[in-house]
């Protein structure tokens, strides 16, 4: 698979995350326009896939809702919690039994830090998740990381409750694209 194909696949994954999964993976929002420029020529690489029924263990909906597409971090940390490892173990099992999907691991930070430091912190968190998934047998070649820093909170409120859910990684699955 050449690089262009690969980037198209990943962009397709981004688009699906945006269009189909506004609650669970909804860090892209904006009708899929965020994350890639419409006038860059990439728009042709988007394909549509089904999220499926969460009761179907092979569906993306199952991954997002039953397994959980995200893990949370403590303040200024990229260490995986026990709960986070359990979620990632289940993610890895699903990813290993559904090898046709490409994966983007997003890293996010809460708003209680400066902007550029938070981009770096988000990358560190995404990488921690990627490395853990690799340790559980998921091929690194299927995965890519992206950091959104504090730019894409799940929910914006100036309270502990929001900061806690915004310090997260999100494992975003593309819809049936393979490479």
């Amino acid at each position: 698979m050449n690089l262009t194909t690969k980037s198209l696949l990943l962009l397709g994954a981004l688009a699906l995350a945006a269009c189909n999964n506004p609650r669970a993976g909804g860090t892209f929002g904006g009708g899929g326009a965020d994350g890639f420029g419409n006038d860059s020529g990439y728009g042709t690489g988007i394909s549509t896939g089904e999220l499926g029924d969460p009761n179907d263990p092979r569906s993306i909906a199952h991954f997002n809702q039953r397994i959980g597409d995200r893990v949370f971090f403590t303040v200024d940390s990229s260490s995986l919690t026990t709960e986070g490892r359990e979620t990632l173990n289940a993610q890895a099992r699903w990813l290993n039994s559904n090898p046709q999907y490409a994966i983007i691991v997003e890293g996010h930070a809460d708003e209680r830090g400066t902007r550029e430091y938070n981009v770096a912190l988000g990358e560190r968190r995404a990488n921690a998740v990627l490395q853990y998934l690799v340790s559980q047998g998921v091929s690194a070649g299927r995965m890519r990381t992206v950091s959104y820093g504090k730019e894409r909170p799940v929910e914006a409120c100036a309270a502990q409750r929001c900061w806690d859910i915004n310090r997260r990684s999100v494992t975003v699955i593309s819809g049936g694209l393979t490479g």
Partner: protein
Amino acid sequence: MKRIFQILPALALALASVGMTPITAQAQPLRLQITEGVIDPMPIAVPAFVAEDSAGARYTDALARVVVANLTGTGLFREVPPQAHIARITSFDAGIGFADWRAVNVQALITGAVSVSGNRMNVKFRVYDVVSGQQLGQGLQFAGTENDWRRMAHKVSDAVYNRITGEDGYFDSRVVFIAESGSRDNRSKRLAVMDQDGENVQYLTDGRTLAIAPRMSPTGDRVVYTSYDSGSPRIALLTLPGGQRQMLGDQQGAMTFSPRFAPDGQSLVYSLARGGNTDLYRIDLRSGQQTQLTNSPSIATAPSFSPDGRFIAFESDRSGTSQIYVMPASGGEARRISFGQGRYSTPVWSPRGDLIAFTKSNAGRFHIGVMRTDGSEERLLTASYLDEGPTWAPNGRVVMFTREAQGGDPAIYSVDITGRNLRRVPTQGPASDPAWGPLRP
């Protein structure tokens, strides 16, 4: 505040013009000592400029209002408003009845005149020390296009500020920033540029993808920022006005962000994140050659060159929390300079070279502060739920920064380096990440 008027022999008005550049003999400055901040601002009067032709009449009030807004906006001056004036200026060259201005407690009087011919505009001004009844320096004239009328008022303001304080002004300058809109969990962030007073906003990106943390080149002709156009953070370089965009520093599997121009404008230093680690790199803008500057298993970001280009201040969490370090511009051993309580971020070297401004978070509060370049004499200028990202005015006397109210929208604020005169910079909507450009030629 100390105020020392040095009264000069009255000088003849020298008028000449080439573009926007004033041509005059060196005007000796007044002395209004501003290093300690101002508790008691100097009262000034700026009567409507005199129209020297019918087309100029449209600008008589507008020019005076911009000059007043600039000068009073510094906190160093307060206006004695026109309705309190008992004298009128009807001719730019007539003598001044100083007693009438003393009677309303004016200390500095600024008079001006404007004419417009075709698209060409001429603006003249003089400054008077009312107390001694003397003109301060020579009159100056600016010539330019009518579209640039606000710039002419900024030029007048800069010259007046310089005459009275002895410092360079900062009014004829622009600020690149991020204009925000939409819900806070799905923000649209557009790169934009405005005059330092919030006017003349131009958008440089369409907002379909995130743009964050821009910086202007030392000559104001280019902007670098972090773009999410590719779906991942990447540094982008934009030529103004509205020119070509170029993506820089592409490395497989890496995110790049936090770009800053070197003082000569020929290279950038920036952060590259890969494999959970963020280091600083430098890219030569002519050759594209990239050089790694730090190599530490930690985050190194938010670099800032010293104005002489010899050093880079940056933020690193190599000690366990974010702190400020200084290293040679070619890389090498970094020396930590921040040792106070809390975390220190976003160091920015003053254009004078004497201070480093920073963001500090401690005990749940955020501050903008300044310290000497060795880390001594730390002073906090602000405190709020979230203040971050200081940027220096070209004269090193004022910083702008982003303030986000608790649960509210971000806005751009300015404060002088004494911690006085905190003001919101007017923007149409939520705004963040200001970066001040140079004084325009």
